[in-house]
């Protein structure tokens, strides 16, 4: 009997001590998850649209001093197409400064001789300039596959589409279609040596 009473009192004590501890445990930051409610609806992934029809500087200025831009079809509608041309220098007007380093393509591999305000797919179908990713993906399958899987091409926004949208670059944001190799750049933000760090001379022999 006596020990029973003692046991009850002891239990009550332990309980009274443990309860606030357990309650406090729940809202300690080190353990709790975020209590933010996240919906199930997915935000959109927007792909940046390339500019529409390209305009070319005619080299002339208008009354306001702005360059006069002309659309491709302005000249090309009335001229014969040359399917062999593959360098800007080969043309008499406009395209002189155009660097072309894109495999063995010719101009009319991608440009549409029927309508210079559009592009042309391999099957001859016309394609709007804003849809140029379809044109690129005809040859660059692995890159297009990786792009679709999210491992090629820069992006901004949310990894979690339940919480917000994402914006992705299109091919021509990084690759100039006429010389698509990514250009050399100067690195930014040179690191400064931290205390105790010995900087090896640049290009020390790599003969290990």
């Amino acid at each position: 009997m006596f020990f029973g009473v003692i046991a009850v009192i002891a239990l009550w004590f332990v309980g009274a001590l443990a309860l606030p501890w357990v309650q406090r445990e729940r809202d300690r930051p080190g353990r709790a998850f975020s209590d933010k409610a996240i919906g199930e609806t997915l935000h959109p992934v927007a792909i940046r649209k390339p500019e529409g029809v390209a305009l070319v500087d005619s080299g002339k200025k208008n009354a306001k001093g702005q360059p006069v831009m002309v659309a491709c079809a302005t000249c090309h509608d009335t001229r014969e197409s040359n399917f062999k041309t593959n360098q800007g220098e080969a043309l008499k007007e406009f395209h002189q400064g155009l660097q072309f380093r894109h495999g063995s393509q010719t101009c009319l591999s991608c440009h549409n001789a029927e309508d210079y305000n559009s592009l042309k797919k391999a099957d001859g179908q016309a394609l709007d300039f804003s849809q140029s990713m379809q044109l690129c993906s005809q040859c660059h399958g692995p890159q297009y596959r990786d792009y679709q899987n999210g491992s090629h091409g820069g992006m901004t926004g949310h990894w979690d589409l339940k919480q917000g949208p994402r914006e992705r670059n299109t091919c021509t944001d990084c690759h100039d279609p006429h010389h698509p190799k990514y250009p050399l750049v100067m690195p930014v933000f040179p690191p400064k040596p931290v205390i105790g760090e010995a900087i090896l001379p640049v290009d020390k022999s790599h003969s290990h």
Partner: protein
Amino acid sequence: MENEPTSGGCGSGCGCHQDPGDRGDATRRNLLKAAGVTLGAAAFAKALAPLATWSRDNLSVDDFLQQHYRELDKEQLAAVLKHLEEDTKKNYGADVTISDHRPQKGVKFGYALNLSICIGCRRCAEACHHENNHDRATNNSYIRVLEMQKGSMDMEHGNAHYDHPVPHPDKFYMPVQCQQCDNPPCVHVCPVEATWKEDDGIVVVDYNWCIGCRYCEAACPYHARRFNWTKPVIPKEEINPKQSYLSNRIRPQGVMEKCTFCLHRTREGKMPACLEACPTGARVFGNLLDPDSEIRKVIDNKRVFVLKEELGTKPSFFYFFDE
């Protein structure tokens, strides 16, 4: 000696054979005691004096007595955050918001980097510098971009101090930051548990609990931890005002810091700053527990590897080359 009276005297063993009834002598003894106590207190204060000047500027009693982050309850944490915001205003003149971002349920973060695409432009390191409120003078960043000889895979031979147009045809570029290991050596060596791994995989530091012993820096095989040798100096207008207790709030002098995968962004569903800054899209970030995530597609379909796998650190950061 044992038979001598001790009451009122100096006690047995002191050697002064005084009559307990001698009043004048009792006064002298009190005087001696008082002098002894004063001298002792003075010596104690003198001994502690370097501690007072050595500790952080304006370290208040509240700061000194603050509990470990994981011991704080909601009210205490709210008070700490408010206090830190006021400190930033006082020390830097900037109005900032310091929040407490907690992990999301069902999320474990993973990062992958395509070494075939990275051109070594270091824009990720620069973005990190600004996002995480690093000291301006030291160009500090959680990311170190290593220039590596093609064919070499040993990051210890990488060169972070290259300065020529990139990419060089004989090299590839490997940015290295915290690998958020599942078996983190830095966490194991911390003598005060100021650094730990959270449920979404991020290894964090309680900057207010860290004692700055730099054991973790020595333990990290990826050289991913940084020490605040000085109080960070950042112009008021350049401070990123969106801050979090465990990530990019301005660190005090004398504590360790590290990459947190920008948890103040990623725990809100956003991409880390280094990924958004990458001009070539070499970086892939996401939830390892979601089988449809971009990061899982990389791990499932690319031949990924981790740095220094033989150490058994189990990184959450993966590298791969395009076939």
